């Protein structure tokens, strides 16, 4: 099964990459752009039949390795 993990920095923490990219977009004339935030997507191919089980396993992977729970939130979607 294909699983998509989206990892974003917790609200309130600074996001230097977002700030700089915001600045660059404005320099290019995209004045309509407001806040910019950076995150990561990790797509993982997982052997398994049961979506709920796969979901639980990948969430565990997030807690242990993929995300840094101290500063990041994550969301796991089993795409099937």
């Amino acid at each position, binding site marked *: 099964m294909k699983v998509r993990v989206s990892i974003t920095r917790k609200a*309130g923490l*600074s996001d230097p990459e977002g700030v700089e990219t915001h600045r660059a977009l404005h320099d290019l004339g995209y004045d309509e752009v407001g806040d910019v935030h950076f995150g990561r997507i990790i797509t993982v191919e997982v052997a398994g039949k049961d979506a709920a089980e796969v979901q639980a396993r990948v969430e565990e992977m997030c807690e242990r390795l993929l995300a840094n729970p101290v500063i990041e939130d994550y969301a796991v979607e089993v795409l099937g």
Partner: protein
Amino acid sequence: MTEPVHRTLGMTDEEYESVVRVLDRTPEPAELAMYSVMWSEHCSYKSSRAWLGRFPTEAPWVVVGPGENAGVVDLGDGWLAALRIESHNHPSFVEPYQGAATGVGGILRDIFTMGARPIAVWDPIRFGSLDQPRNRYLLKGVVAGIAGYGNAVGVPTLGGEIEFADCYSGNPLVNVMALGILEREQLVLSAASGEGNVAVLLGAATGRDGIGGASILASASFDEGSGAKRPSVQIGDPFEEKKLIEACLELYERGLVVGIQDLGAAGISCATSECAANGGMGMDVDLDTVHLREHGMTPGEILMSESQERMLAIVRPEDVAEVLALAEKWEVDASSIGTVTPGGALRVFQDGALVAEVPAASLSEDAPRYERPRERPAWLDAVWADAPDVPDQVDVAGALRSLLDDPALGDRSWIYEQYDHQLFLNTVVGPGNDGSLLRIKGTEKGLAVSTDGDGLRCRLDPRRGGARIVWEAALNVAVTGARPYAVVDNLNFGNPEKPEVMWQFVEVVEGMSQACEALGVPVIGGNVSFYNETGGVDIHPTPVVGMLGFCDPMPPRAPRLDRAEEGMDVWLVGPEHLDDFAGSAFARVVLGNEGGRPHDADAEAGSTVIAHAIQLAGWSPVLHDVSAGGVAVALAEICIRSGVGAVVEAADWRELLCESPHRFLAVLPPEADPSDLSPIRRIATMGGAAIDFGRYGALPLTEATEIWRNALPRRLA
């Protein structure tokens, strides 16, 4: 029953009463927040201040001693050097990458606050055993954080040190030291003089980072219950800092600042009150002008925010426009947030209303001072009695195999090759040797630097241990040809409310002070990190010394470990060994013993040996001090780095493995006769394909190299 607010801010009832006395009324919330952080252990040194005065701090070349953001010494011809060390222990445990990264950012600001360009960083770090995954994660994260920030901000990391012991498992130590150079006219201090001068806040936007935060965290024990005190982690932005460095250096060059202060612990409240108090003035601060990252921040939050990469410059009113324009050129945000006033009051406004009014000086000067009880630990006698049981005869080659495989003794290039250590083209001797040596371009001058600590030996005897790390650091710079010139120290200790910890602290300060006095080297700055305990277990008393050495001129070709050649002689310089095994790597790694009482430093022998090292550095291909692992490991490092074996001809196995102080190896061409540099004796000849200890066995060089290179990587893979 809810706890009174001051207690949730880490303040005792007595301390709260003092605040009431100082203000002569009940503090407003913003005011209480300010006092709670400024009077925390981290900011006020309330438990240590009474003892720090013991350090010798004077010498004719000291320009700025302890108390400012960094110590500054004179290098002649108008050149000055600034040096400073800090700890980021607790933040690095919470989030190793960002904790270490922001540690680097903070120490750099201390340097360029003085007007100096930061030119190098060091990272003395300590962890629990790498057998545990959590410790591997912490080490990797810390090294990546130092690399990620240091490399990107554009300041090379020229070395550090690393130790492993179980006591650091729940409490890793991450210390960072930075060096800067400047020309005398550029020196700036943090005093806000001149009524009507303007306080300009430069750099990153202010968010809710580390509110009630990093400094309180560093001032309390770390246990399960501390979750509530956990600050939101601060995220380092090396790019913002790089711009800030360039902008500030240009401000100084153009003479546009009267005084400047970095924003660290306690953020705006600390910077404004210190600047005002140092100048004997007051300040009016308007929080509406502070560039915020988040909506709805309270005055207390804005004042206490520990958002990174910010500076507060004091500027004459007529220069404000030019300062703001210069900031804009460097793409740094800047705004005028305050005005220097007569009278000594720090007054803070929001939406036109006065939200805090305190005597600026009271935040630092009225802070509590504690002379906490001290008591020699009862367990020390038993520890001394448990001296290493040294056998009659030892297979030195076999012992060397184990020693080279120890993660603290093996090759550290896994760490320092992640650090840019060449930027600025100053690095004449880089990491992987004893001290690093930097040139100052356009002069003949050289600066040598080493950081040294030794938690185990300091646990066994804090006074002797404290003295020995100073001597070791001094020898590390001397073998590059530099004379020991100034010291900064980082005192990492457990809970000062325990009498045993306070006793260790005072003993260490005494030992270090004695060594500095004997060396004639002033202490120009330092940092104290208390409450390094987890679950009631304190870390070893772990002072770390940063030694600055100076030479003018530099040796034409400074010694390095990789310059030994077949046929050269190996000389051991230094006094007869003392069978000193307590706290040695041999006892720890091979015998599994961590007891006994180490020998003391010997000031007379130490000074002689340092003078010899400086002299030999003028022409020796290799000099290497003998420290952890003794002569055997020191010789092996020379062999491995130079790619040539050695045959040891005359040495007792004890001489090879014990760790008596004040010894180094000199590898000299065969025709050289250094015998007038007594005490000195020839112990080996370079050559062959093994490190050959004669009747104590031989270790093939290829095998030694393999073991040494893999000691760290194989545990981290």
